[in-house]
């Protein structure tokens, strides 16, 4: 590995301290903006700042270059204060071409910084971005006067810096993003060390590429340092996060690790049946790295086979898991009812995206809640757990596995594209801090002197789990209605009704094992409650921090257990004059709450494939509060 040269600034520039900054890297899908953003994030995290990220990319792998459809963005919010969202508006917008500027300018703060790649604003790029033929570049026409605009010919400088590298023009062009990263590191007074280290890991066996990337990175830094264009640098202190050891983690990574942790604590092997689908595929990729730990990942021929194979594995005694997104979830419905009827444990992860149909595959939404609740034939209630942030995917899926395994029931875990791809620092637990998960395979006949009773329940309504291969306990399970206890096929009318009730009661009784709901903030009684679930947590939390400063009497409750809900939910809801439910759907939780608790909950609903901004939540709260 190359010795790392710490680059100190040669020049006296004004350094401004700032407690939080939002940077948006925006460019063509081929410009490497995701990688740049992730490197910038890792460095911020390793410097102890709190972070939240939001990668946003087009559904097409290589949408036409230069067009708005092809813009790929990575937003990172870092700071010395606690951060819960990727930020509503950008302080700094890096744009590699005209399309990126056109698409993202609206969310740049007034007086915000624009760093524009000049060559991305030539007449060809202007045309591709949809500017009228012959119009003056927005970099030149004065339209950006309210911002701090820095025009940098990134492509030219990168080319210049790498002219001796021996790389092709195409390869050189690909290093532009490192120039940008170097410049940003200079601007935010961040070390290049971590990035150089990770470049070494990535390109260790390709010295040409490695050196070119490092040269481009340092050139970017030096450009900032040597030219007189930039007059201000920004410095952000480490955040005062709780003491401990941290890592950066995305929602899908946390989900994968949570599944492994639950299996290990339960003494089981993981079997994942999955079919690739955005934005869930990363869970399949992640889990397939853990073969040494006995994790079996099965890429099935379709969504139905994926859940089918997981059900087969669950019958064999594994932690059966299937991961998908909305359209796949719809396909799994029939098999999910079978697993419910079998009363086998099964984890079904739905990483929601914009629907219906193919909808907005790479964008976020929370519109599968009612499908999770009701989207099956027959009376088939299932437990539902939702994660509220990237790192929280770990705790939430761990809880989903615990419920599934201890209660012999499929559990639906809901995440969404926003938190699945987003990342944040995570104060990860150690093995011994994890709650035990009790799984006991039955090996003794529960009906001495008679035949084993596969559907004889304990006081929680839970039936025994027996591994095939256990002598003397041979039994058949099926999708046909079963006689109570024996599990034999039964068409007896009252038995059917009783079995429906028993299966529903078993799910309802899970509420006995989950903690009572606790407010995230606010008073136990008062004027208004904001009730959230899932990935809206960050926006609601940030809005309430501001509103509490402003003296509003508002409480925040965020639901993890959506079915069954904690036992005190009704009581909490009735302690407030008004209840607001912000959701990235048409009002699905609101509908459940209204139906169950008969309260006139109000909604804030957004279905734009984008998460809520803090501002949107705040405005709605104030409006309803003052009504």
């Amino acid at each position, binding site marked *: 590995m190359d010795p790392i040269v710490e680059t100190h600034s040669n020049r006296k520039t004004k350094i401004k301290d700032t407690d939080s900054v939002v940077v948006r890297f925006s460019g063509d899908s081929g410009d490497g903006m995701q990688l740049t953003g992730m490197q910038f994030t*890792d460095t911020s*995290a*390793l410097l*102890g700042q709190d972070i939240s990220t939001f990668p946003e990319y087009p559904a097409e792998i290589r949408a036409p270059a230069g067009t708005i459809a092809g813009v790929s963005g990575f937003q990172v919010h870092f700071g010395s204060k606690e951060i819960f969202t990727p930020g509503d508006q950008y302080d700094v917008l890096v744009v590699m071409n005209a399309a990126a500027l056109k698409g993202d300018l609206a969310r740049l703060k007034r007086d915000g910084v624009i760093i524009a790649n000049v060559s991305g604003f030539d007449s060809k790029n202007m045309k591709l971005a949809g500017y009228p033929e012959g119009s003056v570049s927005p970099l030149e026409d004065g339209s950006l006067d309210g911002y701090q605009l820095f025009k940098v010919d990134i492509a030219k400088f990168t080319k210049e810096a790498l002219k001796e590298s021996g790389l092709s023009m195409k390869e050189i062009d690909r290093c532009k993003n490192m120039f940008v990263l170097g410049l940003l590191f200079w601007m935010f007074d961040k070390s290049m060390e971590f990035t150089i280290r990770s470049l070494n890991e990535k390109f260790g066996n390709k010295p040409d590429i490695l050196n070119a990337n490092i040269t481009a990175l340092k050139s970017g830094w030096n450009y900032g340092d040597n030219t007189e264009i930039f007059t201000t640098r920004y410095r952000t202190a480490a955040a005062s996060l*709780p*003491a*401990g*050891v*941290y*890592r950066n*983690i995305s929602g899908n990574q946390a989900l994968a*690790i949570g599944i*492994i*942790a639950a299996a*290990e604590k339960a003494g089981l*092997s993981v*079997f994942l*049946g999955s079919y690739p689908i955005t934005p869930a595929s990363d869970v399949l990729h992640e889990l397939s790295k*853990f*073969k*040494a*730990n006995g994790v*079996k990942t099965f890429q*099935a*021929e*379709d969504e*139905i*086979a994926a859940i*089918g*194979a*997981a*059900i*087969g*594995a669950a*019958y*064999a005694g*594994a932690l*059966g898991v299937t991961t998908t997104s909305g359209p796949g979830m719809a396909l799994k419905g*029939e098999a999910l009812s079978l697993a419910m009827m079998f009363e086998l444990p099964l984890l079904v992860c739905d990483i929601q995206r914009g629907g219906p149909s193919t909808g907005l595959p790479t964008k976020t939404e929370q519109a599968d809640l009612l499908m999770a609740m009701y989207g099956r034939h027959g009376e088939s209630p299932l437990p539902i757990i939702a994660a509220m942030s990237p790192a929280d995917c770990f705790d939430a899926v761990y809880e989903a596995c615990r419920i599934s395994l201890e209660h012999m029931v499929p559990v639906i875990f809901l995440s969404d594209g926003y938190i699945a791809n987003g990342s944040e620092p995570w104060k*990860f637990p*150690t*093995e011994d801090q994890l709650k035990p998960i009790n799984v006991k395979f039955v*090996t003794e006949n529960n009906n001495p002197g008679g*035949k084993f009773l596969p559907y004889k329940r304990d006081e929680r309504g839970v039936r025994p789990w027996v*591994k*095939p*291969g*256990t*002598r*003397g*306990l*041979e*039994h*058949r*399970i*099926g*999708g*046909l209605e079963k006689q109570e206890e024996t599990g*034999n*096929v039964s068409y007896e009318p009252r038995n059917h009704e009783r079995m429906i009730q028993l299966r529903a009661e078993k799910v309802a009784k899970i509420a006995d094992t989950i903690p009572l709901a606790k407010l995230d903030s606010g008073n136990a009684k008062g004027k208004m409650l904001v009730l959230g679930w899932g990935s809206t947590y960050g926006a609601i939390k940030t809005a309430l921090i501001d509103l509490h400063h402003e003296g509003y009497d508002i409480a925040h409750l965020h639901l993890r257990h959506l079915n069954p809900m904690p036992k005190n939910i009704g009581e909490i809801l009735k302690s407030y004059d008004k209840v607001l439910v912000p959701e990235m759907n048409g009002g699905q939780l609101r509908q459940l709450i209204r139906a169950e608790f008969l309260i006139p909950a109000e909604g804030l609903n957004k279905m734009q494939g984008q998460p809520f901004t803090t501002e949107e939540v705040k405005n709605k709260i104030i409006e309803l509060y003052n009504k």
Partner: protein
Amino acid sequence: MDTLTSNSAPVKLTAKDFASDQEIKWCPGCGDYSILKQVQTVLPDTNLPLEKFVFVSGIGCSSRFPYYMSTYGMHTIHGRATAIATGLKVANPELQVWVIGGDGDLMSIGGNHFIHMLRRNPNIKLLMFNNQIYGLTKGQYSPTSEKGKITKSTPMGSLDEPFNPAELALGAKASFFARTLDRDPKHQQVVINRANGHHGTAFVEIYQNCPVFNDGAFFIYTEKDTKKEECLFLEHGKPLIFGKNEDKGIRLDGFKPVIVDLAGGISHDDLWIHDESDKDKAFLLARFADMTHTHMPRPFGVFYREDRPCIEEDFERQLAEAKLKKGRLPLNKILSGDKTWTIA
């Protein structure tokens, strides 16, 4: 990997030991009874105990099969038994997994899972009861019904070309294909035994009479007066001979099978000698059912078998290889990942 709680049967089991206490509810005269009986007759010869077997089925008349076995079993959903069984076998390769399905279950709604199971080749026995009709839904045409079939749903005749199950299976890279008949218990037992002994997915098509909705569909192959002329029983290493007096043989003229009269001085050496490992010839045998240049007898027995790795073994191999290379990661290491930082 999971280990079974026991590994040997103390006493040799009988066919009766494999029967459950549940009342069998197939129609009187249904071909399924015979298949159930032959499977129960063959299994004791495996010398494996009851608890090692899992019978998995989908939906349809034949799919009630697991309820009538005293082993472990799953009666699942339409068409998905093959997918569910694959997960079961991969999760615990020590189990003896059998899948039971009909022509509708496996070739229509379950067509996708069927072909993918064949190419993956888990060590699973797959019995398809082919009655060329939908029985449980009361008599609609199936994907193996002959074109033009008059049924409740096709009063003017069905419009779609049927599948040729042998051809489909071989095309999907089945490592074993055999065909047998419900009304020939002895042949059935031989074939089921061979399937059981095969290492990989053993796909057996069983012509099964549905006395209610498609009675007699296979009678020319099962009834005395026509059977010998219409059936060709395959035996590895033996020439293809059939006919009332074993007086007809099949010879290959290039790629074209030709029926020859053995009385005309043609010796056995001139005939097509069956070779179970020859896939090209297996395809030709599969095509007999559809050949138009001459009326060919219908082949029964093992068409084709090959040894190739089973997916559950490949899974175990990769797991072992990863473990050897990387070692099992402690959970704490998985939780921490590679890059961490400390906040004091």
